[in-house]
């Protein structure tokens, strides 16, 4: 079980001939993900990791109509065109690994994706993993089997490094993960915490969820609405980083691009609002696992 990725996910990699794309292809295949082909304009006919490269998504889909997910590994200035190609091809899941895509380009892609009911994870996402099934991107890196094992805890993080670090804390406590998703640290987030919580709610493997959140932006507040509407009812613990940032003036960016100091959006203010609807608040990120552990295994 888990979310977003199954045994039937066939992954395309856009930008697979690039350095990062090729590394990701290798990492994904080694973990058992079905990477079926790649796309790089003008490099059609080549192979990476024994998988064929096509000039366009259209060509790739003609040959591999079963593709139902794509990972984007292109430079930021080429990202919009690559993403729109994937949306045009009706690929239902697009994981954007690219960092530093201009907001305007991202907003354009998100509007186009919404119309076609395409899910975008990211941008600036490291990827996602369903332990034992597969991974998109290089979540876990070469230590993936030391950090991930199939289990009951869902992981959502605004930070790529912390996706892995939190997952490690879970493993260290003798537990496993149902899925771990890095939503990315940008101003506009394709799939939000609340979107993922709704998916984790339906996932039988998931017994609880931990989140690494950050100061700035409004996405943590969407969680409150999902809980009030009972769209998410499982135990949830959250850590919100960036309490120190309140020494900086409003409007200043401290951390990821979306972490902008703002009145009403500080770490402490988010914690307060979330705790009022019963979300467990971790004072240190290391405490997240203990909080959900107590909830799941107390009885």
């Amino acid at each position, binding site marked *: 079980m888990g979310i977003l990725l199954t045994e039937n996910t066939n992954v395309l990699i856009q930008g697979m001939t690039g350095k990062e794309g090729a590394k990701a292809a290798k990492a994904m295949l080694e973990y058992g993900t079905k990477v079926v082909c790649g796309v790089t304009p003008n490099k059609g006919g080549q192979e990476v990791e024994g998988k064929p490269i096509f000039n366009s998504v259209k060509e790739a889909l003609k040959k591999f109509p079963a593709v139902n997910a794509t990972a984007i590994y292109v430079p930021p200035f080429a990202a919009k065109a690559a993403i729109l190609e994937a949306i045009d091809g009706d690929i239902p899941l697009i994981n954007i690994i690219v960092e530093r895509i201009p907001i305007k380009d991202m907003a354009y892609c998100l509007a186009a994706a919404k119309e076609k009911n395409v899910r975008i994870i990211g941008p600036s996402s490291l990827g996602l993993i369903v332990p034992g099934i597969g991974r998109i991107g290089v979540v876990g890196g070469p230590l993936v089997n030391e950090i991930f094992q199939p289990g009951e805890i869902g992981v959502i993080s605004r*930070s790529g490094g912390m996706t892995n670090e939190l997952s490690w804390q879970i493993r260290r406590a003798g537990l496993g993960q149902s899925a771990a998703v890095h939503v990315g640290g940008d101003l506009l987030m394709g799939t939000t915490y609340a979107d993922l919580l709704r998916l984790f709610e339906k996932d039988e493997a998931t017994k609880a969820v931990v989140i690494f959140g950050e100061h700035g932006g409004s996405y943590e507040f969407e969680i409150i609405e999902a809980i009030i509407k009972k769209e998410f009812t499982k135990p949830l613990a959250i850590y919100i980083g960036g309490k120190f940032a309140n020494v900086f003036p409003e409007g200043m960016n401290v951390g990821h691009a979306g972490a902008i100091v703002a009145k009403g959006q500080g770490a402490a203010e988010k914690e307060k609002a979330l705790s009022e609807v019963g979300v467990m608040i971790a004072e240190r990120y290391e405490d997240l696992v203990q909080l959900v552990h107590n909830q799941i295994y107390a009885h």
Partner: protein
Amino acid sequence: MNLYEFEGKQLLAKYGLRIPKGVVVRRGEDAIFAYENLGVADVVVKAQVLSGKRGKNNGIIFCSNSEEIKKAVDELFQKNIRGQYVAAVLLEEKLAIEEERYISIVYDTTTKQPILLYTEAGGMDIEDVAHEKIKKIALDIRQENLLVSLPYARELWKCFLTEDTRQIEINPLVRTVGGEWVAADAKIALDEDAFYRHEDWKNFDARTMLGRLPTERELAVKKIDEGEGYYRGTAGKYIEMDGDIAILFSGGGASIANMDALIKASLKPANYTEYSGNPPREKVYALAKIVLSKPGLRGLWIAGGVANFTNIAETFHGIADALAEIKPTYPIVVRRAGPFEDEGRRLIEECAARNGLTMQFFGKETSMSDTAQVLAGLLK
């Protein structure tokens, strides 16, 4: 990047908005000469800072002669407005105001599209305006034509789209007694990730939102990520702070969590710094060298999570290069894991032994926050 009011107004003027007649006076420039050249008797002198609410914080002074101008300009340059450094002052014609409105375009993170906000209750903080008095118009980034008849809405939309702004706010948008619409203020933020399509952004002065000019170290760090490979592993974030613990963090998320942990351990950061992605040895070396060059340091905390794809050996090579050069005498605590962690640990510990450094290294068995406590213990 946030723009000063005068820069924002120059941008708006390009799109056909009328802005008040004015002149910018930087520190050390002759304000009286500028005033006399402006040729308007009644002016408003406005402190140029990167956030709003100047009016409430005495950042705006009305003047009618040279003496008053001199006094006002001197006064404003001696101030910090809400903790911010006054980079310049703007002398502007005083408008004969009939009414004040508010208009802005920002990204709405719920719809993930731009949204236009407009209210007839201009001149006050938008947070203080009753919800029902604010007109909210959802926009679609793909539609270049805007069918909204509010004053200057079309011009603003064109500016928003063309200039890659994150936010445009005019408050107040003034209708003068003469019936003309004038942008009496401008708050604009540019999306720095779009820099490659805006050659002219290079001409903006360096800035910080803190109550001082950017330090030499801050300016030097900014240069590290410049160039063609700017998106391939970054090492260009550095904010100087008042404390004495040097910081070398990796990853945007771990960095903010660790800052909180450091403060919890009653230590004071000398800087906020992160490198992210998989930066090459040279970038990390350049960053580490600048971080360690700050005078008065008492400790160094090098910390990051269990990395996914950052090459620990490569990045630690860069840090070791800087440590070998500077040879700090204060304690160093390291916490890091991930690809090539063994090699990374070996080379940084060897560097410490070779140079007689006091260093404690921790891998993933010890959590990041716990190592902040270790550093605090060493400094007792």
